């Protein structure tokens, strides 16, 4: 997959997370989103500011995926979670913890990892 064109702001965000400088974009009303965004879908504001992603967030919901797509065949079973970072929520792979030890509300940090099947990058959460 190395000959693929970059996906603009998505890959920029992952690069930033690798550098420990993750961010999201936020409107004046405090609605947070992952890039690219030119307008806040909640309030229509086009005045969006890059805001540092908090150091950790809380697990909101998660699942252990046993039946995967071919692109995740060798990753399965794996855990996908949605994590709340305050103004913004992010979906990622939750690693470094057994499924039966996960608790909703537990703090996790965000990093970038590799998918086992394809070697592609992915947003990864790890317990803090």
């Amino acid at each position: 997959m190395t000959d693929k064109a970059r996906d603009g702001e998505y890959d920029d965000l992952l690069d930033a997370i690798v550098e420990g400088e993750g961010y999201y974009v936020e409107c004046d009303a405090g609605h947070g989103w992952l890039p690219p965004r030119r307008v806040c879908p909640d309030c229509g504001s086009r005045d969006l500011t890059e805001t540092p992603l908090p150091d950790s967030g809380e697990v909101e919901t998660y699942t252990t995926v046993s039946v995967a797509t071919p692109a995740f065949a060798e990753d399965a079973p794996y855990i996908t979670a949605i994590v709340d970072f305050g103004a913004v929520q992010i979906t990622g792979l939750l690693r470094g913890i057994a499924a039966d030890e996960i608790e909703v509300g537990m703090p996790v940090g965000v990093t970038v990892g590799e998918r086992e099947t394809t070697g592609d990058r992915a947003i990864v959460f790890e317990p803090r």
Partner: protein
Amino acid sequence: MTAPRIAGVGLTHFGEFSERTGRDLFAEAGLAALDDAGVPPDDVEALFYGNFMGELAEHQGHQAPLMAEAVGLDVPATRYEAACASSGAAVREAVFRLRSGEADAILVGGSERMTNIGTAGATDALSIAADDLYEIRAGMTFPGAYALMARSYFREYGGSREDLAHVAVKNHEHAMPNEYAQIRKEITVDDALESPMVADPLGLYDACPITDGASAVVLVSEEYAEREGLDAPIAVTGTGQGGDRMALHDREYYARTPAADDAAAEAYDDAGVGPADVDVAEVHDCFTIAEVLALESLGLYEPGEAVTAARDGETHATGSMPTNLSGGLKAKGHPVGATGVAQIISIAKLLRGRSAWSGDLDDPRVGIAHNAGGTVASATVHVLEVME
């Protein structure tokens, strides 16, 4: 305002027909609908066609003209794509066209060929209804997304895997007399609970099967039905559609589906009826939890209340709110692009007293069909009524 009438309906059997091409599936359903309607093909003015994964399953885009040709129609044909709500969206657009007087007869349908690409291939194809950058690349599958919603629901409102198992048991029972259904096998709560996990907390029996199939209806204007003396007493009296953020994590709720709330509110208002008037419902139970969320969005239950409806027998054919008497997506099967129109057909049959379960119903007059796309970033709702 006049209400378009359902002049004829057609279905293929739903199931695993991996060697049948999409065009052959749709030709069977479309021709059956035309024959059932008794509307001359020359009177049909357009094809509105729903399909989701044709590019991936058959390497075939631009399907609508192909499908018009397959049913022998030389008419403008357009494909509607709203993930699993594709043919619900097609019905809605046809209703508007007929109401405006711009057309008198439209063939509306959908088809999906899925099993030819296998379980992994179909899981991959279905997953693209989610946000590729921020969900699929984080391992989100379609069952995985509904598993995230189910866990949130349990946490917010209560409920259990056993409650969801009762939804599966009920819909399997409902499918038993449905000759078009993919799975005609009764299961027990223990069967469902002991089935392999797909995406925790959802197991194999919480999920609809992967299905090949097609559906079609001939919708006509009220004026055309009267002029031609058609036997078409069932009307689409209300239509609604709602939308939401594409990615689940960008939603206000994980355990509610506001797009369907909006679609339902619009459809009820359009028809001049309310939840208390609904006699039968077909809802988009791609997963057991999805039936629960649908019943709540339709206002048939308060948020947090529908999870026990199947366990308590309320959504059974003999209950107070008969739901998915066709077997639902869960047992009837879910050929994605065909599902919205197949639900309309199920309701039309129930309202005409032509369902195997009709004997359990007390003269139903109002039915509702709820069709959802993705994790309900798209939803359509239609109200059907018996007209005199």
